[in-house]
């Protein structure tokens, strides 16, 4: 996607919003997620970001000298990185290289020890509790183990993503607005899961469960989606289809995706950009086709592209 395409898309979103969404009316229920996203209220930092984006793709995440230390352990040690709209980034590196810590710092689950992190118009560290909740509501997270509630239906698990937007008292009794339910069902439909909507997720296959996890993240109408080893628990065929879903998310809806992976071949095949970490430092950042075997060796210390030794 070129810069011009991106800027057009951003402009469309802005004009589309002003045309058909003077208030909150269009917030839910849009089949087209690219337009659904612009229905954020005008006070939302994500909206401000879109308006000020100008001719270039908006930067959603900007890490400056980001460091996270756990006691003596330097999980992240001076990371500088920018993430723009529509990118699908694969985060690579051996276990303990800082991949999870980086993802968790973006949604505020871990605090920076040094440096700053701007995420969708908010700056970390220094957010209060409510601001932190707001940030998390704006960042979709897809987990390796899916982290769904096993006894709840696929539909309810997706609706969980809409909890911060729902009225609290009815939500505690599992009551959501018709618009929210419709939106959740449309997301399930787009991921091919509509026939499963009323089934408890514990009866779904791993791939289906991970799609429910993706739908839950999309239900948040996120500015960015983070995925921590999203396919590590899936067999290769399902892994491919889940990554394809994530790639489409970035391409068609413009939502940037950062997925940590431990299989180099999958990163090369699906990602636009590879960011490789080693000992908490960025050792490669560039288009995925430039992530050569030489770079693999520099990142992992050996050249097996499957990263499994």
């Amino acid at each position, binding site marked *: 996607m070129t810069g011009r395409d991106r800027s057009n898309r951003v402009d469309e979103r802005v004009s589309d919003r002003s045309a058909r969404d003077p208030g909150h009316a269009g917030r839910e229920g849009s089949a087209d997620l690219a337009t659904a996203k612009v229905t954020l209220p005008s006070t939302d930092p994500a909206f401000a970001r879109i308006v000020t984006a100008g001719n270039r793709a908006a930067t959603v995440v900007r890490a400056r000298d980001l460091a996270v230390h756990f006691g003596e352990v330097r999980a992240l040690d001076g990371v500088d990185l920018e993430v723009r709209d529509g990118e699908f980034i694969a985060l690579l590196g051996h276990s303990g290289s800082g991949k999870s810590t980086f993802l968790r710092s973006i949604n505020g689950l871990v605090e920076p020890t040094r440096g700053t992190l701007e995420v969708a118009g908010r700056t970390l560290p220094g957010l209060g509790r409510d601001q932190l909740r707001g940030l998390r509501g704006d960042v979709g997270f897809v987990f390796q*183990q899916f982290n769904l*509630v096993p006894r709840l239906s696929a539909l309810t698990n997706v609706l969980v993503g809409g909890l911060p937007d729902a009225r609290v008292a009815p939500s505690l009794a599992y009551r959501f607005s018709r618009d929210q339910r419709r939106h959740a069902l449309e997301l399930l439909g787009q991921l091919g899961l509509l026939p499963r909507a009323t089934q408890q997720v514990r009866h779904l296959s791993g791939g289906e469960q991970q799609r429910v996890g993706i739908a839950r993240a999309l239900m948040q109408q996120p500015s960015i989606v983070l995925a921590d080893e999203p396919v590590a628990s899936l067999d290769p065929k399902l892994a491919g289809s889940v990554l394809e879903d994530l790639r489409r998310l970035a391409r068609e809806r413009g939502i940037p995706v950062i997925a940590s992976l431990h299989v180099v071949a999958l990163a090369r095949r699906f990602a636009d950009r590879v960011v490789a970490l080693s000992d908490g430092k960025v050792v490669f950042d560039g288009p995925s086709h430039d992530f050569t075997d030489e770079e693999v060796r520099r990142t992992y210390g050996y050249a097996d592209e499957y990263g499994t030794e």
Partner: protein
Amino acid sequence: MATPTSTAPSDRRDPDPGQLSRIDELSSPWPRITGRRVLTVATLVGAVAWSVDGSGFSAGALADGLPNIADFLARMWPPDFSQMGRVFALLMETLQMAIIGTILGSIGSLLLAFAAADNIASRPVYLTARFLLNILRSIPELVFALIFVSAVGLGPFAGIMALALGSFGTVGKIYAEAIEAIDPKPVEALQAVGANKAQTIAFAMLPQASPLLASYTLLLWEGNVRAATILGLVGAGGIGLELTTAMRMYDFGHLMAIVLSIVVMVTLIDRLSAYLRGRLT
């Protein structure tokens, strides 16, 4: 020597002498005698001996008394069902008390359990709630019944309140432990979407704990039905008063009819409860 199908690793090393003696030791089919096991058995034996000594348990006295038991049972036979209408009405009152007492008790227990679960409450709240539960558990239901009889007067309402408070002590702690035993991963997901604490409890914790909570609640109900049969002893409603009156009046036929009726009701409720619990998973 090794066939092609042998699973022996090719880089097998000869075990050193230390390994050999460990293999000898662990391959003995007899239970190993360790200091911990000796201590465990000694403690158990000691506790039993201490209890037999203090409680005056005597197999001989029991054997000698058998004829007296037979004599007592013979006097209770045949049961006298002439007042069955009143017995049935009192049994229904007992059951109703148990139902309302269990509902009030389980709601209160659940609220206390939130405070007594270490994955929800802060440390001071947790410790306070656990302490409160210990106090409630050590107070017998009959004492609660007496307190409420003096507060709200004779009758089943006092019994209901006694059952509810007794329930806190009975299931408050096991509810809390059911909540503590849930998988934390969905909780992490709820935090990651920006849900608040009440929403996290409602969507990630309760759905996971609910089969266990429902099962414990049914067991509590069974227990409360049995407990409700004796609360009448202090005038807190139910069939207990009728039962003790029959005993004092040596109205053994009527007593037998009451006991048999209670047996039938408790059995039916146990079966129903077991059936419902079986359908929970």
